[in-house]
């Protein structure tokens, strides 16, 4: 479980996050949604420690992350897996080497065990016979799946996904969404997904946190978001003609 307590962050005096408090529960797919520029990426970067929050607390299973030293953070970080928007696969390594990389750095497994684990993770994301290809040789959807395989290779307790569907066609996007949701339940991890894709919200959002102008504006489940009377949430949810038609 991750608890966020009154987290604030400013850049050059301009507040981007204002006293955000929420809880991301274990075994659930927690979604952060909001318009571009609302502060959801900054919140995720604060959660994983790529940015330091100016005020407030971020607690990983009651361990305060924000005030930890680099060495203390490293212990938590070894329990984190992250899927980046562009995949962030290492260009110079093959698919297999990318998945094995976290194991090489932090596990005491021998080579056979690492290979077995890598193959298990790749199979789990429905990828086979691509072990020796380089990231440049595979499609965008495959890159995302390799990135998920790499993120789960070290058996993380927390999984973060930043815009997992960006640049993907609707069918591949659903495959990635379902994969994230299945992995969350199967390995009982705390998953936080940053998205502005309403399809993802309706597909996998166990819990949805809506960020508006740097504030936590609304939170609830994917079923509740369709019924809320909150104007800003409705403007976001029913921005497309399709959603408005469905509502009517």
């Amino acid at each position, binding site marked *: 479980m991750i608890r966020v307590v009154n987290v604030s962050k400013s850049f050059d005096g301009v507040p981007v996050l204002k006293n955000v408090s929420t809880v991301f529960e274990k075994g659930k797919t927690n979604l952060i949604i909001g318009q571009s520029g609302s502060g959801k990426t900054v919140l995720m970067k604060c959660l*994983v*420690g*790529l940015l330091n929050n100016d005020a407030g607390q971020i607690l990983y299973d009651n361990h305060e992350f924000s005030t930890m030293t680099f060495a203390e*953070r*490293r*212990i938590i*970080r*070894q329990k*984190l897996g*992250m899927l*980046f*928007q*562009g995949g*962030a*696969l*290492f*260009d110079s390594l093959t698919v297999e080497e990318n998945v094995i*990389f*976290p194991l*090489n*750095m*932090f596990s005491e497994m021998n080579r056979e065990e690492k290979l077995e684990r890598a193959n298990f993770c790749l199979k789990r994301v429905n990828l086979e016979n691509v072990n020796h290809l380089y990231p440049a040789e595979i499609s965008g959807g495959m890159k995302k799946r390799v990135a998920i395989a790499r993120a789960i290779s*070290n058996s993380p307790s927390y999984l*973060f996904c930043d815009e997992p569907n960006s640049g993907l066609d609707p069918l591949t996007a659903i495959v990635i969404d379902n994969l994230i949701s299945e992995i969350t339940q199967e390995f009982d991890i705390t998953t936080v997904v940053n998205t502005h894709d309403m399809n993802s919200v309706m597909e996998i959002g166990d819990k949805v946190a809506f960020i508006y102008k740097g504030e936590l504006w609304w939170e609830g489940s994917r079923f509740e978001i369709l019924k809320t009377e909150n104007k800003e949430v409705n403007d976001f949810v029913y921005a497309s003609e399709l959603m408005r038609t469905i509502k009517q």
Partner: protein
Amino acid sequence: MKLFFHIGRYFILLAQILKKPEKASIYRRQIILEMDNIGLQSLGIVAIISVFMGAVVTIQTAFNTDHPMLPRYAIGFATRQSIILEFAPTIISLILAGKVGSRIASEIGTMRVTEQIDALEIMGVNSSGFLILPKVVAAMIINPVLIVLSMFLGIFGGWIVSAVTDVMPVSNFIYGILFEFAPYDIFYALVKTVVFAFIITTISGYYGFFTNGGALEVGQSSTNAVVTSSIFIIIFNLILTQLLLA
């Protein structure tokens, strides 16, 4: 003020680079890979430039010392001294600053803008140490080898000139290159090379690591890395020459 900002951030980065590696075996493997990338892949350009520069230095020295009071072997002597003291360690390091420095800055800069460095950080890896330290160590090991090779090839280029032209007899050239040889000159050249290798890799790593933006900024980082490394090589050339030879 910006200069002080860069100097401060450079030294903070150096402190991070020199932290204890997470897994020594991974770093050792990276060092071997980098020795190939930085050193062996520069072998061709170093060899070609060294041979031709050695030949040119011999011809120019011959034309500028055409005086009955000067013995002909002085041409070989001057060629050897020019190549060992200045050409091989400094000029080849400047060329490596262009080739290796731009490669390091653009490689690390691209990793920054494609979030690969963020991915390393989130895994708990000391990203600056993992990406820059193996390059620094590899360059400090392999560059002296390249420079010694450059010395031999430069003198070989001079020998070819004396053998195939009538600039001077080969026997005089051989006598000149052996005349009053001081091993300390090699030591001086190698000390300079190691310092220059450190400058090239850390400055290029610095510019790459702190790249912000996209493709345009990666290009700018690469250019800044080459320009700054070259300037510092020239400055440290003067400082080390004063310290070691004066």
